[in-house]
């Protein structure tokens, strides 16, 4: 009964640098790059990963951004060829990676059901039989004859998910899809996953949500810099992963993008403003002033915004914001509330202090900004350019933020 559905043996994927920047970089260096092809340096996004995933198993994959999780999924899905080693998949495969990718924007929802169906190799007849159920599950009956370009992103994903759900795949690859749709839809999708598992499908789940992994996965793989750092029981894998990031305390891989404390590139689309006052660095520190990037729930948290003001006596308002990795704003305070001097010293550091961090386990994006006192002119806005992680174990409450509250009961 327990059949191996996915097998990878020392699989590795190597990217070449000039593949990475792709078409955009072509005109300048085409002739040269053709001549220098042999000199190209590659980097291994995935190296030496060996796994066997059996039917009826929900398998978790965790790791920091850039650790190779998505590359692994794409290699299993056959989208990216392996450079070395081998990957074999037995049975029909449902990749829930970037859902809705199979859609044609111009076609209606109904037409897209048939188009996606043929992409996933579902027989035409099976789609026709399940058509009503798919539409029902997606809850989009009213819009099914509207071109999908007019759909909201939520509707788009719901339709895409509903199609995949109905074709009884043997292998399901999931990349953070539970983050979309409303709570009811998430719940139903979740139940469907468990139903697949009962039917003997193998499910590979990539998620940043360690709670989800520990709840539903039997085994998990921890990836670090493209290599398998740990493979075993989900609970142990999570512990291993937490140790890994604690020991690093700085999340090297993530830091490559929004490097804590480093000035981001000026042409970054996440940054705008007149630069009358410039934020030249953002650091996260603990109460002793040590820089760090991983906090626990309830820890002292401080963000230090170093700035330079161009011109004397400038008035300015500083702001900060916390967002979830799904870009939802949690809290966005600014210094209008604070007792702040009328004109700024020419250079200095603004300290934003949270005495007890109420955030729960997960990754968070941090924005820093400085505006004119009427908040209409942005001097320098860093939109979700910084990043930190919160870890916590135990606790019986759920969510992403702890709201100061209590329970009472009154008889009668």
């Amino acid at each position, binding site marked *: 009964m327990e059949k191996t559905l996915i097998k990878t043996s020392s699989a590795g994927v190597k990217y070449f640098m000039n593949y990475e920047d*792709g*078409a*955009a970089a072509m005109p300048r260096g085409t002739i040269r790059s053709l001549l220098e092809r042999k000199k190209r340096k590659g980097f291994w996004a995935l190296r030496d990963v060996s796994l066997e995933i059996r039917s009826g198993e929900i398998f978790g994959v965790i790791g920091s951004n850039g650790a190779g999780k998505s590359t692994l999924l794409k290699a299993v899905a056959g989208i990216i*060829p392996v450079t070395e080693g081998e990957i074999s998949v037995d049975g029909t*495969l449902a990749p829930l990676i970037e859902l809705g990718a199979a859609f044609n924007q111009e*076609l209606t929802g109904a037409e897209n059901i048939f*188009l996606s169906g043929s992409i996933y*190799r579902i027989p035409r007849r099976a789609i026709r039989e399940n058509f009503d159920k798919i539409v029902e599950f997606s809850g989009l009956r009213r819009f099914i004859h509207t071109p999908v370009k007019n759909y909201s992103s939520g509707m788009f994903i719901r339709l895409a998910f509903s199609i995949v759900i109905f074709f009884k795949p043997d292998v399901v690859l999931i990349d953070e899809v539970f983050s979309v749709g409303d709570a009811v839809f998430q719940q139903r999708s979740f139940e469907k996953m468990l139903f697949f598992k009962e039917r003997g499908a193998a499910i590979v789940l990539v998620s940043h949500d360690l709670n989800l992994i520990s709840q539903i996965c039997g085994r998990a793989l921890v990836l670090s810099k493209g290599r398998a750092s740990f493979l075993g029981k989900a609970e142990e894998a999570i512990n291993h992963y937490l140790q890994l990031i604690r020991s690093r305390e700085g999340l090297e891989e993530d830091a490559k993008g929004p490097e804590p404390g480093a000035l981001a590139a000026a042409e970054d689309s996440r940054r705008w403003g007149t630069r009358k006052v410039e934020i030249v660095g953002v650091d996260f520190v603990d109460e002793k002033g040590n820089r760090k990037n991983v906090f626990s729930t309830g820890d002292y948290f401080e963000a230090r915004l170093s700035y330079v003001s161009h011109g004397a006596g400038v008035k300015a308002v500083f702001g900060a914001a916390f967002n979830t990795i799904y870009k939802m704003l949690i809290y966005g305070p600014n210094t209008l509330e604070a007792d702040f001097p009328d004109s700024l010293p020419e250079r200095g550091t603004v300290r934003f202090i949270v005495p007890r961090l109420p955030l729960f386990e997960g990754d968070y994006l941090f924005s820093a900004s400085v505006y004119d006192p009427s908040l209409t002119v942005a001097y320098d806005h860093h939109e979700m350019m910084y990043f930190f992680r919160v870890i916590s174990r135990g606790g019986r409450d759920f969510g992403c933020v702890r709201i100061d509250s209590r329970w009472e009961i009154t008889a009668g």
Partner: protein
Amino acid sequence: MKKYLLELIQFRDLLLNLTLTELKLRCRNSVLGFLWTILNPLFYLLVLAFVFSRIIKFQVPNYTIFLFAGLASWLMIQQTVTIATASIVNNQALIRRVYVPKMVFPLSNVLSRYIDHAILILVLFGFMAIFKAPFTWSLLFIPVAVLLHFFFSWGLSLITTVAHIRIRDVQHVVAILFQILFYATPVIYPLDVLPLKYRPLLLWNPFYYFVECFRFPVFNSSLPPGRLILAALALTVVTFGAGFFLFYKKEKFFVFHLS
């Protein structure tokens, strides 16, 4: 290779869907819809026919049929290849996210083009009736000629598609080359208006053989000479073989060149 072909067969529904989608989308939101596929070449034909039979007078009896036959053959290759060249790049969003055999994209482009071409050929038959060109048994060669065109243009598309993925200028270069070749191929003019010393050059133009193979049954009411058929057949086999093999070898790696 066998696995590859089997997989293509498994994806035949997708191939059909992509082909139909292309045709369907062309009709949507336009009043004349599908008619444009015929109207476009037809107007082109009428303009050329007017210029070359009224203003510059070629000594060709029934010039309209002569021109139409040549143009139909030419468009079968030129339009197909120009459009299919971008097939992979145009579908990169899909290719980067889902696994499908990449061959379905150029092939669906080619197929939907040949549906257009089939309609155009029916219109050509209508013109033959109007202009009183004789219908003879040699017209039975037309399906064979179309098949040669089909595999030749498919094979050529595969080569240009692979090149276009690496260097995005290819599509423009292809379009320009076709413009030049149009005048280097005896589509609008009969072979004998060319000065004798230039005629051997035509033997190096692959499109010459296809145009003649198609035009002979329509215009000359006879089968094309055997050496023309053989040349077209040889060109088709070589081009299709090379294109298919190149595409088959490279398609895994397309994803690295798309962004």
